């Protein structure tokens, strides 16, 4: 219920009295007329966005139609770039790296977002059921994972899954041979490589990103659950509703705003992952494991650099992201309108 009242309260301040109030004393105090204030306040932010996002966007689209190498970006009298039309785009669409990279990008985001949200919600529900001390203890434990910077994450997981001396292979060797062979089809794990094939790189990658991301979801869901009055649950219980029905009929609808924020945040975070893949895959060596970000980086900073092709890949990735974001941006902006 809290969520509903809050939405109403939010709407209240958007269009209500103060803004339309007749100006009382435009000459007093700072001397700025009221109608200019919002634009003055927004100006620095819009300038930053224009300089840091719109200018690069224009530049990269321009570059994606040119052949850009070292000679074109050096500091002292750079040579003009040769216009190549859509050559860069034909090159990437015909490249045998295109479909695997696209598949890796989308599958990774879909699997990771889903797993993060599901695990996070389940842990949030669990935390709500635990005693105060116990839940505090668990929160401290899981938030430590969330706070670990991506570089440190990658370094640690790479070490854990190291083929010769990683603790994972060591532990798997403790499993009785017959069982290990039955379940995994591998009897000896010593030297088993995790970072050679795309599947196992992504297995570790997903495990690691979910590890670092779900604690935040869990704690947010917990905060949401705390705001639901317990009478609702008592009523649901009286009506004989089981835990699953209660979640679907009571918890989920009430926490829908929380879930949609968490989903947007997760999608934004997971689609753009670069650091962890770059470090787990050992830089740009393993081409099969590329996602679009890493492929773009690899082309732009290869030897010799093919910045035009890197730019074209970045444009394709941005286009995909914008289509996905568009739906969300429209939804968010629409909710603003509804509130009003």
């Amino acid at each position, binding site marked *: 219920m809290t969520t509903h009242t809050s939405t109403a309260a939010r709407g209240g301040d958007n269009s209500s009295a103060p803004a339309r109030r007749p100006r009382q004393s435009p000459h007093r105090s700072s001397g700025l007329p009221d109608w200019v204030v919002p634009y003055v306040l927004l100006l620095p932010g819009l300038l930053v966005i224009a300089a840091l996002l719109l200018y690069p966007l224009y530049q990269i689209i321009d570059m994606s139609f040119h052949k850009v190498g070292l000679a074109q970006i050096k500091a002292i009298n750079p040579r003009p770039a040769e216009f190549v039309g859509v050559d860069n785009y034909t090159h990437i669409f015909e490249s045998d790296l295109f479909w695997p990279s696209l598949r890796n990008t989308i599958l990774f985001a879909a699997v990771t977002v889903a797993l993060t949200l599901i695990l996070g919600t389940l842990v949030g529900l669990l935390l709500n059921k635990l005693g105060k001390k116990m839940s505090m203890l668990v929160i401290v434990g899981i938030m430590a994972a969330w706070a670990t910077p991506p570089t440190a994450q990658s370094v640690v997981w790479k070490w854990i899954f*190291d083929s010769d*001396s990683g603790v994972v292979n060591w532990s798997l060797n403790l499993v009785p041979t017959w069982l290990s062979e039955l379940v995994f089809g591998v009897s000896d794990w010593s030297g088993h490589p995790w970072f050679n094939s795309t599947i196992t790189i992504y297995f570790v990658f997903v495990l690691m990103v979910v590890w670092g991301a779900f604690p935040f979801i869990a704690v947010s869901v917990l905060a949401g659950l705390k705001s639901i009055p317990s009478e609702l649950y008592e009523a649901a219980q009286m009506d004989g509703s089981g835990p699953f029905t209660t979640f679907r009929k009571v918890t989920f609808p009430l926490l829908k705003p929380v879930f949609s924020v968490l989903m947007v945040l997760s999608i934004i975070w997971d689609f753009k992952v670069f650091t962890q893949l770059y470090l787990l895959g050992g830089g740009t060596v393993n081409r099969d494991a590329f996602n679009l970000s890493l492929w773009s980086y690899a082309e732009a900073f290869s030897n010799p650099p093919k910045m035009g092709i890197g730019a074209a890949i970045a444009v394709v990735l941005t286009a995909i992201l914008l289509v996905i974001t568009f739906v969300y941006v429209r939804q968010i902006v629409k909710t603003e309108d509804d509130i009003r």
Partner: protein
Amino acid sequence: MRRTLTAGLIVVYCLAPFYWMVVSSLRRTVDIFSTTPWPSPPSLENYAAVFGGHSDFGRALLNSLIVSGVTTVLTLAVGVCCAYALARLTFRGKNLVLALIIGTSMFPGALLIVPLLKLFTELGWINTYHAMIVPSMSFALPLAVWTLTAFFRQMPHELEQAATIDGCTRWGAFRRVILPLAAPGVFTTAILAFFATWNEFMIALTMISKADMQTATIRVAQFGGASDFDTPFGTQMAAGVVVTIPLVILVLVFQKRIVAGLTSGALK
């Protein structure tokens, strides 16, 4: 009982890698391949290697601190103004601005680095702090606006009314009444922006080639190098612990505020 067990399993999943990082960092170099659950005998050898000799990790930490600190301050100055206008004022084109800011938070880093590298090469900015600070604002600013807008919305709008009646202009109300009251929200946003910048990797990797300008996150990854045959795991783990511990402490202390800051639009 079953609940406690599940909770235990989850904590193990979360803490095990973390624990292993700490334990490995405390082993002697000769014991690094040992799999005992605690270091025996414990040693600070790896930490000495991180800070001593020619690796100069202290300088990298200082670089990280400067880049993150300056980015945070700049982002907040710009973000507070934007968020206030978006949350509490009515004006034409608001939806457009809102859509633009949310949309930009989706732009991938890959889009930025090539054009910015070209621009900064022309400007002679390569290997400087501002080559990291300025691009970092591109992701810190949307995050800050997102958090602060939600925060400003929660404040009762009678505040400005009262201020206006007392003879303040809109501008005066913002400066003298709203801003001081918003301090806790601004603080949460500062932590989040600091975090995001501290963790940044791609920009620092591209814009910096000189070792003494590298940030700590880059240095952690480059102990031994990505393709080096013999990775000095112990040193890497010690460096990992050093960059992680300050963040873990910050998160544990301000955990409630961080969650509220990121989701408050939807909660309370």
